[in-house]
């Protein structure tokens, strides 16, 4: 297979450069120019993916400096699919919002700057470069959250930026430590030098510092406080929420995988992250069930799904690992779709309360069908993509505690989405919504819905196409699996009717409970100490 058409840094810089050069153009032409730019980047990223997938890894040293000295960009089996996913997702989201009212030049520019930053994180093979680009992504995300300057958006963004900045300070101190010990910032060389260490205990402090930052970025328990504020921010436009939940939170998961591999010669904290993944997932869906705001239901549910992904990645079997990797893509598809359609629903009904929105399926059929596809995907219904990745994750854990944990998580997912799907049926209590007339919204929603279905029907092929390993997925469609799903669904329905609806009023305390900035900082410190203690005890 051919080499990539363009050097890797072009892919990172192209959205930013196009945005900056054409900034003087009037709004409509600018929008078209940026569409052209992001489509071009998508083309390059798909071509890069094919070159990596059926060729070899692409390694590039920026400015021609020798290895170790240069900033390295790497496209390999992990990063190339993520880059492709990011490009496709951003382009779809951009087309989706073609006619949206909030779109102006500055917004478009910052939005696509975030795209470039995410490419940078995925392609970077240098620890300090990752730090710099993550700071850039953090600033752009903060601006996007408070772009409409409504209500408490500025407060949400301030909290987001300060929490993340503390985590990034931890990360920089960790990078400084690791630079002292190994003398390099290049991840591949660092891995080699870590293997040569006489005493692995010397790197537990930098490991704990860097991983604390990564855990906050991937919203692990108890550091997920920023995520619902950022992703479910009432004033954030639909595409911002979709991009944050679909792609940006996966940066943390991606770095968790990447850096775990780098540190693997010295430290293995897989068990810690496995437990943490389950814990995050369970806490996430519990908090999702008690929410009333549909965006907050989705945002807390992102926490739960990220926990599931992290648990899958650390279960220890290959099939569960690739199941987790596939779930990253699946989650981007269905959560992206759900957030995009939720934005349209909120605009049409003028409310965010799950109790007031009714009859979406009748009044907005296309959005309703898209939402239904997203819900079926996320609950792991047979023939939809969630079932495949969840099946892969659950394979190889038969008959132990982890299996019960996975059942519990899926049950919680179904329960919270039974609550969410009540918006689809019934009669609207207030005004009837205005009908949907936007072909871009409809087209992209159906495209996402179709991708969710295709990812389920051709699940096994999709995994081997994107990542390489071959696993049979017909077990996900066995009679037993379908029966289990239907039974779980029925139990969920009964539990929702009998329990959740009745105790709803008592849950208000949990719903409005929020941590202050000081408490969050205490959690970050506690997490650091806990991880430090765990690695100290586990490393001999």
């Amino acid at each position, binding site marked *: 297979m051919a080499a990539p058409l363009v050097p890797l840094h072009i892919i990172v810089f192209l959205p930013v450069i196009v945005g900056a050069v054409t900034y003087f153009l009037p709004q409509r032409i600018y929008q078209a120019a940026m569409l052209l730019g992001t489509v071009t980047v998508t083309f390059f990223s798909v071509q890069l993916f094919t070159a990596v997938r059926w060729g070899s890894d692409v390694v590039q040293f920026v400015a021609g400096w020798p290895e170790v000295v240069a900033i390295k960009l790497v496209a390999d089996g992990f990063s190339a699919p993520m880059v492709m996913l990011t490009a496709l997702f951003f382009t779809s989201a951009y087309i989706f919002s073609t006619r949206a009212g909030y779109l102006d030049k500055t917004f478009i520019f910052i939005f696509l700057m975030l795209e470039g930053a995410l490419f940078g994180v995925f392609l970077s093979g240098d620890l*300090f470069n990752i*730090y*710099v680009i993550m*700071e850039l992504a*953090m*600033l752009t995300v*903060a601006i996007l959250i*408070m772009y409409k300057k409504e209500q*408490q958006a*500025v*407060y949400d*963004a*301030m909290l987001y*930026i*300060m929490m993340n*900045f*503390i985590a990034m*300070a931890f990360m*920089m*101190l960790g*990078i*400084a*430590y690791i*630079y*002292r010990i190994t*003398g390099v*910032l290049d991840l591949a060389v660092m891995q080699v030098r870590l293997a040569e260490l006489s005493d692995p205990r010397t790197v537990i402090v930098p490991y704990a510092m860097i991983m604390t930052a990564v855990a906050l970025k991937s919203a692990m328990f108890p550091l997920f406080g920023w995520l619902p504020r950022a992703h479910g921010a009432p004033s954030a436009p639909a595409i911002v929420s979709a991009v944050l939940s679909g792609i940006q939170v996966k940066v943390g998961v991606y770095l968790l995988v990447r850096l775990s591999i780098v540190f693997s010669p010295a430290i293995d904290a897989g068990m810690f992250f496995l437990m943490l993944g389950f814990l995050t997932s369970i806490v996430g869906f519990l908090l999702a069930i008690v929410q009333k705001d549909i965006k907050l239901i989705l945002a807390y549910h992102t926490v739960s799904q990220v926990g599931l992904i992290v648990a899958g990645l650390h279960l220890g079997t290959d099939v569960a690992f690739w199941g987790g990797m596939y779930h990253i893509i699946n989650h981007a598809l269905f959560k992206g779709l759900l957030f995009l359609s939720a934005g349209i629903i909120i605009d049409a009904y003028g409310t965010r309360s799950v109790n007031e929105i009714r009859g979406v399926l009748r009044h907005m059929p296309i959005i309703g069908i898209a939402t239904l596809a997203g819900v079926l995907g996320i609950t792991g219904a047979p023939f939809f993509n969630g079932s495949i990745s969840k099946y892969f994750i659950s394979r190889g854990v038969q008959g132990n505690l982890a299996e019960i944990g996975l059942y519990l998580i899926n049950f919680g997912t179904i329960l919270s989405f039974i609550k969410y799907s009540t918006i689809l049926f019934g009669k609207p209590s207030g005004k009837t919504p205005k009908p949907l007339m936007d072909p871009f919204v409809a087209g992209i929603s159906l495209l996402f819905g179709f991708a969710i279905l295709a990812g389920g029907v051709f699940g096994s092929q999709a995994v081997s196409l994107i990542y390489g390993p071959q696993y049979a997925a017909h077990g996900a469609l066995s009679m037993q699996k379908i029966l289990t799903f239907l039974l779980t669904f029925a139990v969920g329905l009964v539990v929702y009717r009998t329990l959740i609806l009745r105790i709803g009023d008592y849950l208000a305390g949990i719903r*409005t409970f*929020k941590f*202050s*900035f*000081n408490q969050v*900082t*205490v959690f970050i*410190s506690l997490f650091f100490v806990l991880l430090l203690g765990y690695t100290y005890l586990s490393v001999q």
Partner: protein
Amino acid sequence: MAFVMEFLSQLTMSDLAVALFFIGLYGAMTQRSIIKTIMSIGIMDVAAITFFMMSNFEAGARSPISGTDPQHMADPVPQALMITAIVIGVSVVAMCLAMYMRVVYRYGTADWNILIRRLED
């Protein structure tokens, strides 16, 4: 007393930087005033930068610019990187301060706990 003096004389710049980092963290954990927490995270950032600067430190090393004998040159990597980190730190703190001003004008308080209560109303 002699023990304390000896301990103090053995402290390096890096140790002080780590101490400063955790002092900043303590401030972020305990201060209820928003402006003081912004100061605290600024201190954490500066401490991390100082710590990075002191890596591979050698007494008597010369600045890594052209013309210096490579044998006596200080490690150029931390210096090059920390320029970037300082700029990032300044811009993030500046952004925090800008948001702080908006929040203060809007809600009329500079205290995290009072702010949360006002947001719920």
